[in-house]
């Protein structure tokens, strides 16, 4: 046994001795340099679970050279190797969410430590780190210890561009809303689908058939459902005036109860509280295809004169709209579900696309406050178009300024 070890040791020695002059001859690689400026600190912009280690990149960084990070829970050790980092990887520039986009970041190594010895870092006592560099034969340590403690941060600076957008856009909308209070004549272009609603209701009254109104498949916290319920309010008011009937089968119980409130209110405003029937706004089920089957049944059996589909839909869109189209009803759809738009476009008489759905309630009510916010949106779009044009030109010239401005992490 011993003999075996000795022999393999001897062979290794011979190989090393033989290789040594070769290594000296191949001295184009710089010799190993000690690590410099090793610092540990709490990782910025995080939830307090990690510590960042940084140190200067050196000229001796190359394939085969590794940095070794040791850690301990006390300054006296015991030290234990935690990670080996290939010296050509892990730079500060890999983590712009913490350090920004400065060119200088490429000159610093960076390692994010989240656990030592497979335990999460302590948030009450500091963790100690040592750094060494090795090329397999030589190992040089950084003369010193770095220590830090993770901390949760209260503001994420990498999201500042999002904050600026929020503020700018809120300002735009609020400004135009306040402007709209003073100036009551704001222009708004035609939305053909909405102009047709009145006609539709008239037709339904003549035929003595109900109007079917769907709210889509999302719950009350989604914006398309909110837009849809507020359109329902306006539609219901016209329905009450024409003394027609509106049926609203619902997919979500909360949406159902909001719809009941909204329609009741509209009948009250129209002076026809007696004509309001709560049973007409009812819940079916919160399963997609069971809902679709039931709505198809309603369309075939009650033969509504008009179907209004406002809100967010999934695959059931065509199941419902095609049945409606064949039943001969006039159909108006409005959805912000981009993938379902083609099916509404082909099967409905009018379709409100995306943003038009949100604009509909302003359009129908002509309330200055709502129209004002539409104006604000238009300026937002103008702003985006400007950014697209200027940004593309600037980046074509060779400055990635705008790209960095909109970069998200």
């Amino acid at each position, binding site marked *: 046994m011993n003999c075996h070890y000795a022999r393999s040791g001897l062979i290794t020695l011979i190989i090393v001795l033989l290789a040594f002059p070769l290594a000296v001859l191949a001295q184009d690689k710089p010799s190993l340099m000690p690590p410099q400026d090793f610092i540990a600190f709490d990782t910025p912009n995080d939830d307090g679970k990690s510590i960042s280690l940084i140190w200067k990149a050196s000229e001796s960084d190359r394939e085969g050279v590794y940095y070794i990070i040791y850690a301990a829970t006390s300054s006296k050790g015991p030290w234990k190797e935690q990670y080996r980092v290939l010296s050509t990887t892990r730079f500060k520039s890999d983590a712009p969410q913490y350090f920004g986009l400065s060119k200088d970041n490429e000159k610093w190594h960076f390692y994010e430590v989240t656990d030592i010895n497979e335990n999460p870092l302590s948030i009450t006592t500091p963790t100690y780190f040592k750094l060494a560099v090795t090329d397999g034969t030589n190992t040089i340590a950084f003369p010193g210890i770095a220590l830090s403690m993770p901390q949760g941060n209260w503001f994420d600076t990498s999201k500042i561009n999002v904050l600026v957008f929020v503020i700018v*856009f809120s300002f735009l909308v609020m400004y135009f809303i306040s402007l709209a209070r003073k100036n009551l004549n704001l222009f708004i272009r035609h939305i053909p689908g909405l102009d047709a609603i009145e006609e539709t209701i008239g037709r339904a009254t003549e035929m003595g058939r109900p109007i079917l109104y769907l709210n889509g498949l999302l719950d009350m916290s989604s914006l398309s459902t909110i837009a849809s319920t507020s359109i329902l309010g306006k539609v219901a008011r016209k329905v009450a005036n024409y003394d027609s009937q509106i049926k609203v089968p619902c997919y979500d119980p*909360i949406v159902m109860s909001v719809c009941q409130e909204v329609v009741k209110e509209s009948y009250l405003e129209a002076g026809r509280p007696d004509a309001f029937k709560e*049973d007409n706004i009812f819940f079916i089920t919160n399963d997609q295809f*069971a809902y679709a089957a039931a709505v198809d049944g309603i369309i075939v059996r009650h033969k509504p004169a008009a179907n209004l589909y406002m809100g967010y839909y999934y695959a059931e869109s065509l199941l419902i709209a095609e049945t409606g189209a064949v039943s001969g009803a006039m159909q108006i759809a409005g959805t912000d579900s981009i993938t379902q738009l083609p099916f509404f476009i082909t099967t409905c008489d009018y379709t409100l696309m995306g*943003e038009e759905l949100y604009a509909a309630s302003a359009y129908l009510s002509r309330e200055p406050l709502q129209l004002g916010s539409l104006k604000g949106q238009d300026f937002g779009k103008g702003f985006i178009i400007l950014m697209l044009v200027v940004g593309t030109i600037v980046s074509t010239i060779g400055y990635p300024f705008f790209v960095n401005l909109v970069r998200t992490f």
Partner: protein
Amino acid sequence: MNIFRRTIPLIIAFCLGIVMIFRYYVPHQSAEDLLTKYGEWVRIIGGFSIVLGLYSLFFTHYTKIKRGMPGWGYSIFVFIGFAVMVFLGLIKEFETFLSIISGKLIDVTSPFGSWEKSLTGTSYDWIYQYIFNACGATMFSILAFYIASAAYRTFRIRSVEATILLLAAVIIMIARVPIGGLISHWIPDLADWIMEVPNLAAKRGVLLGMCLGSISTALRIIFGIERGYLGGGE
């Protein structure tokens, strides 16, 4: 009374809205917890609301049966389906109910109660597979027929726009099956180009506009301008 009916809801919406906006910029763990908690609370409230749905559904079908309205017989099937599903779905949960009655705590630790890690082999699974999924998948697949008949009825060269829509659809359809590639490799290439260039551009445009629209709706809600969801003025 107006305070309770209108002002307080608007204050709730305003405060929560503002807190939630600024929460986004806080990387601290507590901000993350806030979001999780809020999500759970909303789910709890939503959970209660299913009672409203049940009430509405049962009321509708009960009235149909009671008044003997046309097709009332079918309403019975709603009750049967519901009862069977709830019974089988919660059969093991009755332990919990029993424990409430008997006053002794039986702990069912798994997050899904008796479901443990799988439904395979349970009676609930039988209903899911052979009834629920049979109906759902069939309803879903009816789309195949509808998509064909919708294409036949509406893909007509009535206008420039309709023609463009038709052409794009036909090109993609032929490129998606092997025959497209056999005719010429240009067909799948063209289809990919359509997906990646004009389609991307249009979707991006719609999406950007829509985002602005939804943000402005959200702002109107937070600042109490949009009140439709509360059920009108008063």
